[in-house]
């Protein structure tokens, strides 16, 4: 009898393994051609949209996104939004892993730098296959171009910003500088930095004059790319080839090295470290996406009293160009009904009605021309100084290994600072590593 029971248990265990099998894959066929059945139609049957969104887990944004869900579902009663959440650093892998298991989300709230990953994976579809021409015509062409691969927009910018210069007006005053006259060039910045770096905080801590992120995360690489643009250089050509032999590219990393040697730039810092130091009054100036202000203000709400913004600095022969940073919506094709619902959701999300609320809590610029005069933008004290910076943003080429190229840029910055290498050696090593990624 014992043997029979043992055998039965064994059989149960073996068969229970079958329960671990993956769910039936989504077999709906994608249809990536523009102008199909989604235009103008409203789904007649109940539809659930899977919305991958890391921001809902972040302090300060939960109420906004839950409000969006509630209001949208009220407006379109047969459409339900189902959140798919993961922290910022994990959401891309989460969406890819789900898709690999046959469970593809419909929409992802992400960053412009993620666009080539989803395009290369064959997950995202050009947004013009889902959204109407009339709706897309309202977007600044340069902003749609910045999200395009082979001439097709594979992500929709929801709101945008270049890397702007945030500075502490109180520290400027303390250093005997005019708080209404931020630097316009790197040379001016270095002159001011000399005075600012002599300051101490009330509790005797060092004040860093200038912050440029160089830590090993892709967004730091994007910030370094923007700095190369400030000097008039490029990291990649429009064709996605490496462009690291220019004088501007070298000047950028000479500046990074100089800032480190003078002790102006906190070493190997992430953007969140810089936001922290800025909020605590230990950093006089730093580059950040405009919405990075939110991260600093959650640490110290009083920063609104001393923060001002300015356009990116001009260096070398450059004129202070920068790259566009954007919070984007990546769309995926799960069949006609889903696409119809998706069109309604995107049009709702990127509307003045919704973005007005969002931009009230997050300083950023709208990507739609009809929203340029939104009061929340025109009257923003934080964005006032950097308002012309969008005119100097340039699209940067997308390659599938963009994130890795960005990490190699961080390695280059680290090698010439904490690594003690010469700029020439650092660039040579970068070229070897980056070239291998592009092959």
């Amino acid at each position, binding site marked *: 009898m014992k043997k029979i029971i043992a055998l039965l248990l064994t059989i149960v265990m*073996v068969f229970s393994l079958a329960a671990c099998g993956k769910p039936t894959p989504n077999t709906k066929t994608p249809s990536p051609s523009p102008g199909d059945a989604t235009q103008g139609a409203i789904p007649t049957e109940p539809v659930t949209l899977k919305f991958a969104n890391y921001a809902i887990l972040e302090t300060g944004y939960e109420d906004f996104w839950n409000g969006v869900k509630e209001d949208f579902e009220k407006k379109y009663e047969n459409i339900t939004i189902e959140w798919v959440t993961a922290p910022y650093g994990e959401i891309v892998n989460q969406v890819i892993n789900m898709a690999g298991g046959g469970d593809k989300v419909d929409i992802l709230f992400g960053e412009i730098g993620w666009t080539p990953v989803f395009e290369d*994976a064959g997950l995202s579809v050009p947004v013009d296959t889902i959204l109407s021409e009339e709706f897309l015509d309202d977007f600044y062409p340069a902003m749609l171009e910045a999200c395009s691969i082979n001439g097709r927009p594979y992500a929709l910018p929801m709101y945008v910003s270049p890397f702007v210069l945030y500075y502490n007006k109180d520290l400027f005053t303390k250093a005997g500088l005019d708080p209404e006259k931020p630097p316009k060039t790197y040379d001016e910045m270095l002159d001011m930095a000399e005075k600012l770096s002599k300051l101490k905080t009330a509790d005797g801590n060092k004040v860093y004059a200038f912050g440029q992120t160089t830590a090993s995360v892709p967004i730091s690489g994007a910030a370094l790319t923007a700095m190369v643009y400030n000097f008039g250089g490029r990291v990649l050509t429009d064709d996605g080839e490496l462009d690291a032999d220019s004088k501007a590219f070298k000047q950028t990393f000479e500046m990074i090295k100089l800032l480190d040697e003078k002790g102006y730039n906190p070493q190997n810092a992430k953007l969140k470290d810089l936001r922290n130091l800025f909020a605590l009054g230990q950093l006089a100036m730093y580059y950040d996406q405009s919405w990075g202000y939110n991260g600093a203000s959650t640490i110290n709400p009083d920063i609104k009293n001393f923060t001002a913004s300015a356009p990116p600095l001009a260096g070398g022969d450059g004129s202070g160009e920068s790259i566009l940073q954007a919070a984007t919506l990546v769309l995926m094709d799960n069949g006609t009904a889903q696409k119809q619902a998706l069109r309604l959701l995107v049009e709702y999300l990127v509307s003045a009605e919704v973005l007005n609320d969002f931009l009230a809590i997050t300083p950023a610029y709208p990507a739609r021309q009809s929203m340029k005069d939104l009061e929340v933008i025109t009257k923003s004290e934080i964005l006032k100084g950097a308002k012309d910076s969008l005119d100097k943003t340039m699209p940067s080429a997308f390659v599938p290994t963009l994130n890795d190229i960005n990490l190699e840029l961080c390695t280059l910055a680290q090698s010439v600072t904490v690594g003690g290498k010469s700029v020439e050696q650092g660039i040579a090593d970068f070229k070897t590593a980056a070239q291998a990624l592009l092959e």
Partner: protein
Amino acid sequence: MVNKSMGRPLRKKLIPVKRSTGDIIFSSLLLLPALIMTITFIIVPIVDSVIKSFQDFRIKNIISGQPGEWNNFANYIKLFQSQKLIGAIIATFSFVLFVVILQFIFGMILALILNSKVLFARFIRSIMMTPWVVPTIISALIWMWMFQPQYGLVKYFVGVFSGGAITDFAMLNNTKTALLGIGIAALWKQIPLTTLLLLAGLQNVPDDMLEAATIDGAGRTRKFFSIVLPYLKSVIKIVISMAIIANFKQFPLIWTMTGGGPDNSTTTLAVLSYREAFISNNLGSGAAVTTIWMLLMVVVIVIYNKLLGTTDID
């Protein structure tokens, strides 16, 4: 039918087999779940990973269901040419050696102290396990804050003990000290378990042997090396094997604390594998790193087992 000798009914066997053969079949059937689990979740993924390491296999292959394109040794050649692999192997071995040696030494010292009827031994044993219980990510965050270059506790103490001579101590920002910083965090987390296992081994060393040695005039050192250590041999072997494997595959601590930087100084094989597979989205190349990593780990464990031998004390 009644068995006269036993006085109870005889049951007919369904399939007439010898008792020994029946036992073999029965035990094989009982082993089946473990066998299926091992093949499904260990052998198949390993073989699959090795196959993919010879392919150009990317995320689009997973999404579209298309098989990867066979590219012979291209992934391996590219890795060796980029010099990242050699750097990662050196970083991995440096990290494993540093942590495993110190983990064993400190673990043994603590175990001996706790075994010597020290006051509050039971209480110390309880709180000692706290770092081991803390999730690795949290440990990494705690140590990042400790090493924080502007307001970290370590920077503060270095400033105080150097009399203000060192004001910019930033362990994780220096290419020469970053791996050491992660090693310290790993030691903090892993020493408690080592201590506990060694302590369990120490408590099994027979008292009569120690008493006999004392009567024969053996000192503490002689007793430790001639009686305690040989008795602990099997425990030590397991403890060090576990430490080698745990540190060879250490990923969350390194990724959270430095992301492989600065200047790739903390890019171990685990970090390189993740970067290739999930940052570059080149799963074939990630699998190539993993295959090399697995082979190295197997070689290390085999050498280690050879060195320590298999004989136990009688």
